[in-house]
């Protein structure tokens, strides 16, 4: 609990549930007749709705991006370091929207929510969702708020992929696109890791083919293993070495299978915590959305040609020790954007924290972020003044 809410925090925030009754055609061929999204907003939307920023979340993120739900919260939202009054994404200037994506497990329509047609949780019957579907649902969310064009769509990791897809699907609806620690599509290695995670979950005896809600059980072990595996890919070898090394919890080896190395107990702790907070069916869906992400798949053209229709200005950021989505993968995006003659800037941030670095307020990362936000602000101001004349 924060003793006092920090001055640069958005403070106590309240999520809102927004209902959509227009059927949503999904990439998988199925239709969601109605759905709802959990949303948080920070800051004020200006009169011409030109100062809105959409934050897209990654695999395990949600709508609670910044601030606190109550004074009892141990931690603020997942990207509180970047969002608040006077922070990089300054909520005194921008209207910031965070949402829980479709298929999520934090209140938006997803496996753990009731299917209005059956009155029971969707469970494994919730349709497979793609990044395209998310962009479509986010566009409708923008309509709900009366936002014609976002000042920026910003995301890290899987969130960065949504931002990139936005620039292709709705070229006129965003002025800036920030793609952080992402990739233009997953590699075989990325998919392989996801598959191990999915196997861990679906082979857990308490998974019950995804119908575990009715059994009042949770595939805790599977979810824990999936998270432990994922967590390793979020850290770097260097980062793990400096954080844990070969430190022992009790100072000596006990020649048994209890966790003795610090890194073991850390991973177990992270895995266990996650297994009580996250839904297994959602984890399966999110990893599938990652695997299927490929903006070139539909048209069968190179990324540069697919990006030809984009109109946004791009800021691409990667981190040196990120091996989940390495700098090379970000450079693929940058090369395609250069090839397509798009406006793009790219920074490769020296950081030991691996993929996780995108959530950490590293000084140079913040410098770049702040500098680019100035640009977004200047473009937003010029929109507003244009509108006034």
């Amino acid at each position, binding site marked *: 609990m924060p003793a006092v809410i920090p001055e640069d925090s958005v403070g106590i925030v309240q999520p809102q549930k927004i209902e959509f009754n227009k059927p949503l055609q999904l990439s998988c061929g199925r239709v969601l007749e109605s759905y709802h999204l959990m949303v948080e907003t920070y800051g004020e939307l200006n009169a011409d709705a030109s100062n809105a920023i959409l934050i897209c979340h990654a695999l395990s993120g949600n709508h609670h991006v910044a601030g606190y739900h109550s004074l009892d919260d141990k931690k603020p939202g997942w990207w509180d370091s970047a969002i608040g009054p006077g922070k990089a994404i300054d909520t005194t200037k921008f209207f910031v929207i965070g949402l829980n994506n479709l298929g999520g497990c934090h209140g938006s329509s997803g496996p753990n929510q009731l299917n209005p047609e059956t009155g029971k949780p969707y469970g494994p019957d919730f349709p497979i969702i793609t990044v395209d579907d998310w962009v479509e649902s986010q566009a409708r969310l923008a309509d709900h708020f009366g936002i014609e064009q976002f000042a920026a769509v910003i995301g890290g990791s899987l969130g960065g992929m949504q931002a990139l897809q936005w620039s292709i699907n709705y070229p006129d609806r965003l002025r800036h696109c920030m793609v952080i620690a992402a990739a233009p599509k997953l590699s075989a290695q990325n998919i392989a890791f996801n598959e191990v995670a999915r196997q861990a979950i679906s082979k857990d005896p308490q998974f019950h083919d995804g119908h575990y809600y009715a059994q009042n059980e949770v595939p805790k072990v599977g979810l824990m293993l999936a998270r432990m595996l994922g967590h390793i890919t979020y850290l770097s070898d260097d980062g793990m070495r400096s954080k844990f090394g070969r430190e022992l919890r009790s100072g000596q080896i006990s020649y048994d299978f209890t966790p003795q190395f610090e890194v073991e107990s850390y991973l177990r702790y992270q895995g266990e915590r996650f297994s009580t907070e996250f839904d297994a069916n959602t984890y399966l869906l999110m990893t599938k959305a990652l695997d299927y992400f490929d903006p070139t798949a539909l048209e069968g053209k190179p990324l540069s040609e697919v990006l030809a229709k984009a109109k946004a200005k791009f800021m691409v950021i990667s981190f040196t020790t990120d091996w989940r989505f390495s700098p090379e993968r970000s*450079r693929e995006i940058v090369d395609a954007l250069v090839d397509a003659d798009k406006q793009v*800037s790219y920074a490769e941030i020296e950081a030991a924290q691996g993929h996780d670095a995108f959530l950490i307020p590293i000084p140079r990362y913040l410098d*770049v972020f702040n500098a680019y936000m100035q640009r977004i602000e200047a473009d937003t101001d010029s929109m507003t003044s244009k509108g006034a004349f």
Partner: protein
Amino acid sequence: MRADLDLIKEWVEPGKRVLDLCCGDGELLHYLHKEKQASGYGLEIGPENITECIAKGVNVIEKDIEEGLASIKDNTFDTVIMTQAIQIMMRPDEIIDEMLRIGKECIVTFPNFGHWRARGYLAFRGQMPVSKFLPYTWYNTPNTHFCTFKDFERLCVERNIYIMDRTVVDNEHQHRWWIHLWPNMLGEIAIYRITK
């Protein structure tokens, strides 16, 4: 504006697509964008410079050009510029080849090691020249490939590179009529506009 940049801008026509290698804080690109509606990017590796470019609204890409420009397709740019950096490259000849591959024309500026001051320093002191303009000593200089105007032009002949324009200025980047009497002796900075 740095005076060599002031001269270069005259060689970039309005609306062109420009790539500035080692673009520094983006001053030239910022000018070309504002005054000449040029588009394009700067490549840079200095963190402060990159932040400065972004803040100015200059499109900058963090890239070490020593690692090559292979990801950029042939003739992507109208003009590829490199100011005061050719002498710090590991292989200036390869960089120039690459610049001419990805750009229709190139602008290169570099300090002239054939200037009388440098010649005099080596001739009379027997030491590698150190001056306000060339402040490094031999063991810590980033300038590993100094050349003279003559050397550069010889490279152009060998590689069939056509020199479209050239100008020579002193260290204050001023044209002086007398420099042109003996440019390789009197000029301190060379500015070449080349194409294949």
